[in-house]
């Protein structure tokens, strides 16, 4: 019954608030009730708002970008910034929208909260096992409020984001693929989710890691086609020093996918002196990880990190600064 309810809620959300633009300041939406199927992100929510009017350290970021550009990245021949042009994104978005409208994706599952106060209230209640009535009311209200206010939620995430310890130091790719598959399975959209070993074998993962093409192929083979019936995932390459347009596009794409219950997969390139995911040492590291949503009207990103088996300072889930995260994607990109 609970699964049916969640699917119904998710379908309602997907069908009704699909195309709302992102904008800070919830206005009327702040009074709305949100949907919190999965209260896990609340456990990791930082105190206070978590974000502030941050300044970009543009000189330092440019310096990191320059060093990335100087590095002989084996993926360089595949790098195609054309994958992130407005035309390419719009075309892909149209495909995804059509698929969602056609109902080929068997419904998504996402939590949607208009603001932080509502998140805390509703997710705390969800953590105490919300009643069916709560969930139906929660499903209906934000749509009405947002439709009136015309704004996006402050917080949005794919429900029950799975997180696994990567079994080997070079298995962040297989771990991330397995996490995405298990997320979909937990949300009732996939059966027999792929495990890390199978994923590693399929992608040909070795101590050099998992390539971009192998990862996208793995995502589509084990998640995209089984869930949506087509190759849902494509890779968007990001500039060494991401432009504002690329930063906005990332958020917009994450918004679309997360609303529809699809995790995004990041291909991080952490460079010495540049930003790193939480708990990662200040070294050059290439790392796949699962991105589940955003908060603070897009200023923060919610992700799962399989490197809990690598560094003990790594949290399974974390909220992280969005600008810094897109900088980490610079030179590589993300599959959405």
């Amino acid at each position, binding site marked *: 019954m*609970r699964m049916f309810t969640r699917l119904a809620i998710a379908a309602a959300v997907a069908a009704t608030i699909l195309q709302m633009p992102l904008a800070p300041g919830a206005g009327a939406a702040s009074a709305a009730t949100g949907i919190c*199927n*999965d209260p*896990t992100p609340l*456990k990791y929510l*930082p105190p*206070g*708002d*978590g*974000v*502030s*009017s*941050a*300044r970009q*350290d*543009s*000189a*330092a970021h440019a*310096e990191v*970008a*320059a060093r990335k*550009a*100087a590095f002989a990245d084996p993926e360089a021949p595949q790098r195609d910034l054309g994958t992130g042009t407005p035309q390419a994104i719009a075309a892909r978005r149209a495909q995804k929208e059509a698929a969602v409208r056609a109902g080929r994706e068997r419904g998504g599952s996402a939590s949607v909260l208009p603001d932080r106060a509502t998140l805390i209230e509703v997710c705390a209640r969800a953590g105490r096992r919300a009643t069916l009535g709560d969930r139906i009311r929660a499903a209906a209200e934000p749509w009405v409020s947002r439709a009136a206010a015309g704004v996006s939620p402050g917080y949005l995430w794919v429900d*029950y984001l*799975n997180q696994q310890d*990567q*079994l*080997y*130091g*070079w298995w962040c790719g297989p771990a991330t693929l397995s996490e995405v598959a298990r997320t979909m399975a*937990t949300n009732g959209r996939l059966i027999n989710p792929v495990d890390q070993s199978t994923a590693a074998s399929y992608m040909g993962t070795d*101590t*050099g*890691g998992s390539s971009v093409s192998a990862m996208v192929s793995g995502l589509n083979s084990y998640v995209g086609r089984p869930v949506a019936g087509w190759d849902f995932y494509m890779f968007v390459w990001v500039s*060494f020093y991401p432009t504002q347009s690329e930063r906005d596009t990332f958020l917009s794409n994450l918004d679309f996918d997360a609303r529809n219950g699809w995790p995004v997969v990041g291909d991080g390139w952490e460079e*010495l*002196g540049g*930003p790193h*995911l*939480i*708990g990662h*040492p*200040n*070294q*050059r*590291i*290439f*790392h796949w990880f699962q991105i589940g949503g955003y908060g603070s009207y897009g200023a*923060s990103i919610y992700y799962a990190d399989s490197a*809990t*088996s*690598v*560094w*003990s*300072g790594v*949290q*399974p889930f974390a*909220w*992280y600064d969005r600008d*810094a995260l897109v900088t980490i994607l610079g030179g590589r990109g993300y599959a959405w």
Partner: protein
Amino acid sequence: MPGNPLARLLVVTLGVWGSACSTPSAPLSAPTAPTSAPTASPPASIALSVKRADACIVSRPAAWETAFARVTALPEGTRFGLGSPAVVGPTVYGQINTADSSGIARLDLGSGRLEELVRFGADVSGTASIAVSPPWLAWTQGNSTRNLFDWTVYARNLESGETLTLATSRRADGAFLPGQQPVLSLRASQLAWSQTLPGPGPQLGSELHVFDLAARRDKVLTTGRVSAPVFSGRLLIWGERNPGGAYSFAAVEALTLAPAPLPEALRVPGSIVFLAGAKDSFAWSAEGLMELNVWRFDANERRQYRAPDIRHYFQFMQLAGGYLLWYSGVGSAILDLESGALVDVSGSLAGGDDLIVMEQPSRPPAKKGEIVASRVSAARPSGLPGLGECRRS
């Protein structure tokens, strides 16, 4: 519905760097609250208090600009990244990067002389930790940018040039030990670290090593779920986690390695993630990395600071003369432990007993692929005015 895994942060340690934002905060003069009674029931006469404060972001005072005004400019195309408390007198150790190579170097801030000490192989990810106590230089090297389990701990006698391989994750059968790269702490010839035990996962436990570099003698102090240890004051301190998940500290006398009674301030630590030690203070961050605890040995109190935002997670920390230096994952920052005010630093940081060293890019890159030279400056924290008070805007 299945729940997601809860925080499984083990214990860790170390090091540095940070970045920006601005939120109102409460000054450190906030009312003090007594800690809950320690389980070890200490004498009432030494009841410990905890002062709590929200850290706040401030602008760097003009006096700081003056203090850090003397800059050592590195040769064009040479970056010198810091991040470990590897400062000896006026010499700072860090990672050097040029277009052709990377490795470890030392910079004499008096003469401006930069000397390359170690050159890395092509796929080396960098150093997780650098520790120095002349004539010894020790470091943990990440051997791969893609295999996060591949690491080696080295020590080099900078006088004789002899290099020792002290530990590695590379096993004889070609497999790798799971778990993180060890974080090192070095005092005199005693090098301390913890490393994971062989097994299917790091949660099985680690062993805590103290290697006497002069005597070439290794001693395993303890095993279990232990953090990296840090020398702090007269102690070597580390965190432990019992099978029930509860955190605690343990300590030995640094000189003799004999078990030492735990100081009152460390008896009810809450959760423990990153540690930092100095001659006069000790710090640790809690799960979530938004809370920092600092114990100054001369004070009968513990101070707790809350990070102002998610750009200032407390991790990879160092202590230097009344300041905390850290790398948050987004950038580097310096926290005034007296007032709770912090400043962001565009670059990296290293701290010594009485020196804060700051590395910053000298300018934005002029072209794609260019490695911009670092500019390095230093100041004695004892000569710096505080960062000011936190004010509500």
